[in-house]
């Protein structure tokens, strides 16, 4: 009879790595999404081009390949990253590229009339964005951001390929040592699902907060 408690402990350690990757990766993705999304709307052609190249490159190539480049090829350029840093960088840049299109779409969805009101009230470009456009665009972004965060969570499994001991990596270790596939993989199935549900719940909460007032009820 196998004593599962030690093995489950191993998987839970992996779960912490997965959570760390998801949180840090999402933070980087969020920064990249806003930088590139707003960059695509810039009045400077060079900024627009840079943002477009970033988005198309990271959407157009596989996360798997990107991860290998970040971890195995960047050292040749003098930049050696730990597996965690490499994982966060690859995941954040990849998901950020998708998020950038969400930011761009939401900002553009705030109508011309709002922008014209801002001009008539003599707000500067920055003030328009900060006080009028983004507060209205943010609620539009949140549902898709939730999707992106869950995609990122599930994407973290690829980092096991660069020997980062995330949840999937640990499940494979347990499987190799015990010969049981069912228990480790059933465990991580449940854990991934719980984490994804937590992201969904958090996003719903944020959405409720962000749309408060817009439907006519001020708390």
């Amino acid at each position, binding site marked *: 009879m196998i004593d599962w408690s030690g093995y489950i402990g191993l998987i839970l350690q992996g779960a912490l790595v997965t959570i760390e990757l998801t949180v840090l990766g999402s933070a980087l993705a969020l920064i990249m999404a806003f930088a590139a999304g707003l960059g695509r709307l810039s009045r400077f052609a060079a900024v627009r081009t840079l943002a477009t190249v970033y988005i198309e490159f990271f959407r157009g190539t596989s996360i798997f390949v990107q991860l290998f480049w970040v971890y195995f090829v960047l050292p040749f350029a003098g930049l050696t990253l730990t597996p965690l840093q490499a994982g966060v960088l690859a995941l954040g840049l990849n998901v950020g590229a998708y998020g950038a299109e969400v930011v761009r779409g939401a900002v553009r969805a705030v109508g011309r*009339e709002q922008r014209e009101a801002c001009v008539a009230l003599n707000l500067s470009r920055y003030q328009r964005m900060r006080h009028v456009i983004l507060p209205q665009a943010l609620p539009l972004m949140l549902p898709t951001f939730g999707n992106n965060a869950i995609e990122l969570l599930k994407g973290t499994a690829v980092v096991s390929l660069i020997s980062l001991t995330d949840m999937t990596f640990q499940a494979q270790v347990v499987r190799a040592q015990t010969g049981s596939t069912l228990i480790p993989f059933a465990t991580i199935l449940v854990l991934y699902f719980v984490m994804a549900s937590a992201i969904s719940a958090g996003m719903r909460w944020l959405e409720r907060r962000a749309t408060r007032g817009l439907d006519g009820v001020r708390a």
Partner: protein
Amino acid sequence: MPSPIIRIDNITKTYGPLTVLDGLSMDVMPGEKLALIGPSGSGKTTILRILMTLETINGGHIEIDGEQLYHMPKAGRLVAADEKHLHKMRKKIGMVFQHFNLFPHKCVLDNITLAPMLTKGVAKAAAEKRAMELLDMVGMADKARSMPAQLSGGQKQRVAIARALALSPKIMLFDEVTSALDPELVEEVLNVMRRLAAETDMTMLLVTHEMGFAHDFADRVLFFDKGRIVEEGKPESIFKNPRQERTQTFLRKIIAAGHRV
């Protein structure tokens, strides 16, 4: 004789192959109340939008309060205005839109205080005090904490008027401000504007299809067609004795459509 506060000199505006304004020139005196009437597509709204810098011009010059709007002097020559110059010029002008354009995520009070606080550095308390005075004037003081979505169209438009006034512009532009309203809500907005016209010496330009209101409100009426001023004069002469055939036809149609003159 004071000099004009708005001097429009031979401006052209085209959208691709379409010429909207064709060498238009007109002057507006300080404090004057002007009504711009004419069929849709005649260029009257475009003039307001150009004055508010929401559109650019393809040729000509505009002078507001003694300064060029789209040009600025640089090294002894006039060059195209930059954002900083436009920012300075916009301080002189306010605009009220057909569809109100209130900020839906801000309450009535915050809609009004936002711009004075951001663009003039007015302290929050002072901005709110002034906003309440303006809301009182437009009869909306009891709705200061309401969200725009909770208001009727007429109420929204009254808030929008207060919001534009909060920046104390010298010139106010009203772009078909009652066109999007249910008929029974038109009067409450017009009443606010009547008071405004009577109590302030602001220069006002009004684009409207409310001929009865234009008649009472305006010192001068301009009839536009195809990007040109076809006829202008005192309201009585334009509405009662239009000289131009096109003006007569337009007014007949408007009256047939049920508008009062």
